């Protein structure tokens, strides 16, 4: 992710060639090959990890499936491939994949690369701190003099430096690159604080013998909008953007993969917004024609993938080992105080 920012810069600088932005070229290729090639992180618990059959599962993989469901009508036509961070950028720019759903932070300089387009943010992450509860710290502004464990060479360290100097506090850093060694150092008390992305901290906490002895501090010290990346193609980008909006709208309207067949059967008695989302001669149908999606794309997305809440709960929610709280965070719908804003489909 951000830790590989430097590699990323090198990689993209090598491959930065003027890529012609062609409307529909990527869409045509996807339809001709009958698959969406989608790159994910090969090993990111909860977000993308291969199951026993070697098929990637997780929150990020669902957006690959969403795109395949909208364009090809079958979520299983997403060819999901695990690939390292800098390689994934190169692969997109070299036009060997169609999209990447691998927790890439959208930053200004990355977006300025013409070889790839940032489409829509699926998850708002941020850097935070984890402490042992027995330390008695409730807020990151009380961390003066603490020893912080963090990954070497990542933007994490820069953000920590900013935070501590802004608050006029002293601190020490233990740079440990290897994850298990870092965890060991933190759980054994060699450092007082572990700094990383909130999602990473949530999964790291599960590695403790008694996870309940550790707590995440409420402070978020950096913005990490994790965004879907597409190969530049106006139509393809629009298709991804609005497929995601279908998932958000379905959540707000209470339509899930389980009840969608009932909703469709009784469409005339549904609210107008639901009719526009799933009806035959509706706004969604009109979009399907002009973008070249399957006729019932919005139905296929919800039926095969689910709405945003279902996907979140399935991979990250309280029923999972990761247990990343959604209520009250940026990743709630805007009506619940979050940042996810369902755009109107009409």
């Amino acid at each position: 992710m951000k830790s590989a920012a430097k590699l990323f810069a090198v990689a993209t600088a090598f491959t930065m060639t003027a890529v012609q932005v062609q409307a529909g070229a990527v869409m045509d290729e996807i339809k001709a090959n009958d698959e969406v090639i989608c790159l994910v992180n090969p090993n990111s618990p909860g977000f993308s990890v291969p199951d026993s059959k070697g098929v990637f599962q997780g929150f990020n993989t669902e957006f690959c499936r969403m795109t395949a469901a909208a364009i090809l009508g079958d979520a299983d036509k997403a060819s999901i491939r695990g690939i390292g961070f800098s390689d994934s950028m190169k692969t997109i720019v070299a036009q060997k994949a169609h999209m990447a759903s691998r927790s890439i932070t959208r930053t200004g300089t990355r977006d300025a690369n013409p070889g790839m387009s940032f489409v829509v943010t699926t998850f708002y992450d941020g850097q935070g701190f984890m402490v042992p509860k027995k330390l008695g710290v409730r807020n990151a502004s009380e961390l003066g003099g603490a020893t912080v464990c963090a990954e070497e060479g990542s933007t994490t360290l820069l953000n920590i430096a900013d935070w501590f100097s802004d608050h006029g506090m002293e601190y020490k850093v233990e740079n440990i690159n290897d994850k298990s060694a870092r965890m060991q150092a933190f759980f054994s008390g060699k450092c007082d604080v572990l700094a990383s992305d909130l999602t990473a901290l949530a999964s790291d906490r599960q590695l403790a013998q008694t996870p309940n002895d550790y707590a995440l501090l409420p402070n978020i010290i950096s913005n990490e909008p994790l965004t879907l990346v597409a190969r530049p193609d106006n139509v393809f980008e629009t298709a991804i953007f609005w497929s995601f909006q279908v998932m958000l709208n379905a959540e707000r309207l209470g339509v899930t993969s389980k009840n969608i067949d009932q909703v469709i059967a009784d469409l005339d008695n549904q609210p107008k917004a639901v009719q526009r989302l799933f009806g035959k001669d509706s706004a969604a149908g009109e979009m399907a024609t002009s973008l070249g999606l399957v006729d019932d794309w919005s139905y296929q997305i919800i039926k095969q993938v689910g709405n945003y809440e279902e996907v979140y709960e399935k991979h990250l929610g309280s029923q999972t080992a990761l247990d990343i709280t959604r209520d009250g965070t940026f990743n709630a719908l805007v009506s619940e105080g979050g940042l996810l804003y369902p755009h109107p489909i009409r």
Partner: protein
Amino acid sequence: MKTSENSTNSTQTSQPAGAMQKWATQSKKAQRWIHSRLFRTPVDILITCIISVLLLQFLPKVLAWLTWNSVAFWGDPQLCSEEGACWPFLREKVRLILFGTYPFNEQWRPALACLILVSLVGLSFTNLLRLRSRVIVWTLGSIAFFVLMSGGNLGLIEVDSIQWNGLPVLLMLSIFSVIGAFPIGILLALGRFQKEDPVLRSITVGYIEIVRGVPMVMVLFMGLFILPLMLPEGVNLNSLYTTLIVLVFFHAAYFAEEIRGGLQALPKGQYEAAQSQGLTYWQSMRFIILPQALKRSMPGNMNTLLGAYKDTSLVVILGIHDIMATAKMAYSEPQWQQYGVEAYLLVALWYFCTCLCLSTYSRKLEATEFKAAK
């Protein structure tokens, strides 16, 4: 009758007595062995005590974890606890560890490809084939390996090399890098050993010392970022092949030094004899010098080979997923997170068995060479 009775009596009594005696001498032998090996000096006694305390402390726990506290391979993974190993985890994940994210229904292809490579190596250990037929068999086998893995023809589905993981990647990188590195190593050694051409000599010395002077991880990184710059525009090597090329040039430097050792160990008379026969440089190398030098450098070469084989797991830093990385994937799924040790045990077992085969073979080879030399 009496005599026979006597004789039977005596045999009856002497048999237990003989066994007793045997047992007595054996126990005496054992006592002497224990005394001389374990308790001869005070330092010996101290070391023996410390080690037995440590063994008593840890061995029962390890054994319990491995066996009676564990859940059997065919058992129910729900029963797994922290007390013992969870072998059902391996039942569930063995294909992921071996073949990674290769499409599940196509996994007979990497399995067959691995079998081809392993049997080629095994075949080369025997004396069944002469050099020329070895080259032919290896060429055919390698083509079969790549056709099976990548597909796209013969009615096989195309599988992008991004999806190649696990065992086939390990075997491909280690075997082909060694095959590529060995001839280059010979040339480098010859370049460094001769005296006629000082420019060539200093180039080879520089190359060998630079490659041996930096860690493998650094060479891998350099290769990944610098090799693409040297390629003509439009040629796009994926990182798997880039890594293979880098490994070839890395191991070549090590082979070169081992082979140079063999060249140096040859008596001067061999070189002079070759020269006096009127052989050209290449002829004398091919027929007289190299066959002897390579034999002498065998133990060192085998050492480099084993190192190369095991170091292959470092490629994970370049995002290539060999069997170590797929083992990590196997216990990354949230519900299987506690079972890393089981996954790594499987990998360790694979490495141990294969390395044991290699070193046994090299010992046998050395023994026969030694006999032949006598």
